[in-house]
């Protein structure tokens, strides 16, 4: 379980987040929604202390992340950035990096086994010795997800993981995230722009507006009024075939 309490952050004198708070249970997938500049990416980077918040706290299973060492934090929270730097590293080596918080000196058998299993799980076994710069966008995102998952985190932070993917890869990626989150009881916080993708795969929705939490809850909070207020666009929210969809007008 993760509890975000009164988190505030500013770049110099420019406030980005103001007293943001929410709670998410293990195995839940929470979509973090809002327009550009609302503070979504800043929020998730404050959660795992990539950025140090000005005030507020984050608790994971009751323990404050501020009191954790970097290694301990990396064992609890995994993160996939919006943009990934390419390097001349093989797929296996990149996934193996996820075991860094556990590796003391040499790579252990357990590390190799976990990485092999995860590479098979995401379907990249044929590419495991390929360099990252030879992969497609979808394959690269799967590698990053695999790297994050071998950290064995309690919380997984994903910053727009589907933004550069075609529809098929978007759905494959989200299916995989939801499946693994439920299996391993991982809380997933996912910054996402596609409302319909969020509606399909997220259990709860946190709307950010101008750096503050606007609404938080289940499907019921994704309504016409919220979307119009957060994004400033006219929208229709409909239930079709038992599924809620949003149409921007």
């Amino acid at each position, binding site marked *: 379980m993760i509890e975000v309490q009164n988190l505030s952050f500013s770049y110099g004198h420019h406030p980005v987040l103001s007293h943001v708070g929410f709670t998410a249970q293990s195995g839940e997938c929470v979509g973090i929604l809002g327009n550009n500049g609302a503070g979504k990416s800043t929020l998730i980077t404050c959660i795992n202390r990539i950025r140090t918040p000005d005030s507020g706290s984050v608790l994971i299973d009751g323990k404050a992340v501020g009191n954790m060492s970097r290694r301990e934090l990396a064992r609890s929270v995994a993160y996939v950035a919006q943009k990934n730097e390419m390097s001349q590293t093989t797929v296996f080596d990149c996934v193996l990096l996820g075991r860094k918080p556990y590796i003391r000196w040499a790579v252990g058998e357990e590390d*190799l086994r976990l990485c092999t299993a995860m590479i098979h799980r995401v379907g990249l076994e044929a590419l495991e010795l390929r360099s990252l710069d030879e992969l497609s966008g979808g394959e690269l995102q799967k590698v990053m997800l695999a790297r994050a998952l071998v*950290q064995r985190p309690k919380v997984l932070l994903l910053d727009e993981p589907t933004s550069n993917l075609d529809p098929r890869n978007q759905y494959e990626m989200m299916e995989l995230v939801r499946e693994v989150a439920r299996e391993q009881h991982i809380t997933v916080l996912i910054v996402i722009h596609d409302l319909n993708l969020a509606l399909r795969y997220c259990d709860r929705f946190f709307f950010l507006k101008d750096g503050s939490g606007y609404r938080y809850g289940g499907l019921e909070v994704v309504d016409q009024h919220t979307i119009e207020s957060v994004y400033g666009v006219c929208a229709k929210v409909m239930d079709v075939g038992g599924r809620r969809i949003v149409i921007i007008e």
Partner: protein
Amino acid sequence: MKKDQLAELSAPYRQYVRRKWGFVAICAAVMALACLASLAAGSAGLSLGQILGALVGYGSRETLTIIWNVRMPRIAAAVVVGAALAMSGCVMQNVLRNPLASASTLGVSQGASFGAAVAIICLGAGSQINSGGSSAALTISNPYLVTACAFLGGMATTVLILALSRVRGVTPSTMVLVGVAISSMFTGGTTLVQYFADDVMVATVVYWTFGSLGRAGWQEIALIGLLCLLALAFFLFHRWNYNAMESGIHTARSLGVPVEFLIPASMAVCALIASVSVAFVGCISFIGLIAPHIMRVFVGNDYRFLIPCSAMAGAVLLLASDIACRVLIPPVVLPIGALTSFLGAPLFLYLIMKRGSVK
């Protein structure tokens, strides 16, 4: 999947890692061969038998003197200085996220040169000796003072670079421009210091900046060697952190890398070994830039292998350059700093053209 099955499935990766270790062994063998070639090169015309005999203590007094007092110190200097410069370039390129980073491109060498010039000329760490007739030469009478001043010069540059890298909006490419500006500043400072020295001092300091492996004695070599070993231990201890840094600073932090410590500490260690090398053998450019890039072609960006391979590649490049310096126009020994730049630049261009870009 069961444990046995998974172990079997990870076999290709294990084989791949074994191949990488095999490549490290090949690098060590090439370095040993380069050392032997360097022992054989020179105007004395020693046979392989004479060289091998001298190595185990047999041979004429003259042969033993040539091998142990003339050639061996040069070889040892080439190995430790080449390794020091290459390792510092390799790690600087990683922590600054800039493929063009090295001690010479960032101005660390020039800062160290300035510090060494101040120590030699202003603080009396160099003493003038008569070498017969009217000619005179300069020896470093206080190597520790020169080392300390060279280190301070190198560190001053490093601190400036790190301070500027924290300013928002400074891109990796800007960092190289910062290095150009800092090098220019220190080169100007060195010129000013020389302006107030007498003719012999100026001539000797200018000659000193050309770079020469023959200048370092066993005491200096031991000091660089010891620092090199400590630096290697530090770098290898952080090899997984450097691997994580390749994914970007944010991802590295999320993987548990203590970025706030790693970057300044690594830069300080790089500046130390590069500055001390420059203090004892003068400015030697391009080794720190090119050796890691050559090795990336073979081992990629895995710092478990890249750090030791770069160190050995740096040693081999400097040994090869030293051989060229001694045999191109015998009995004249060309300045090694000039030769490494002269040969290093086209080699670097070749790599860029071959690979499209140096990543």
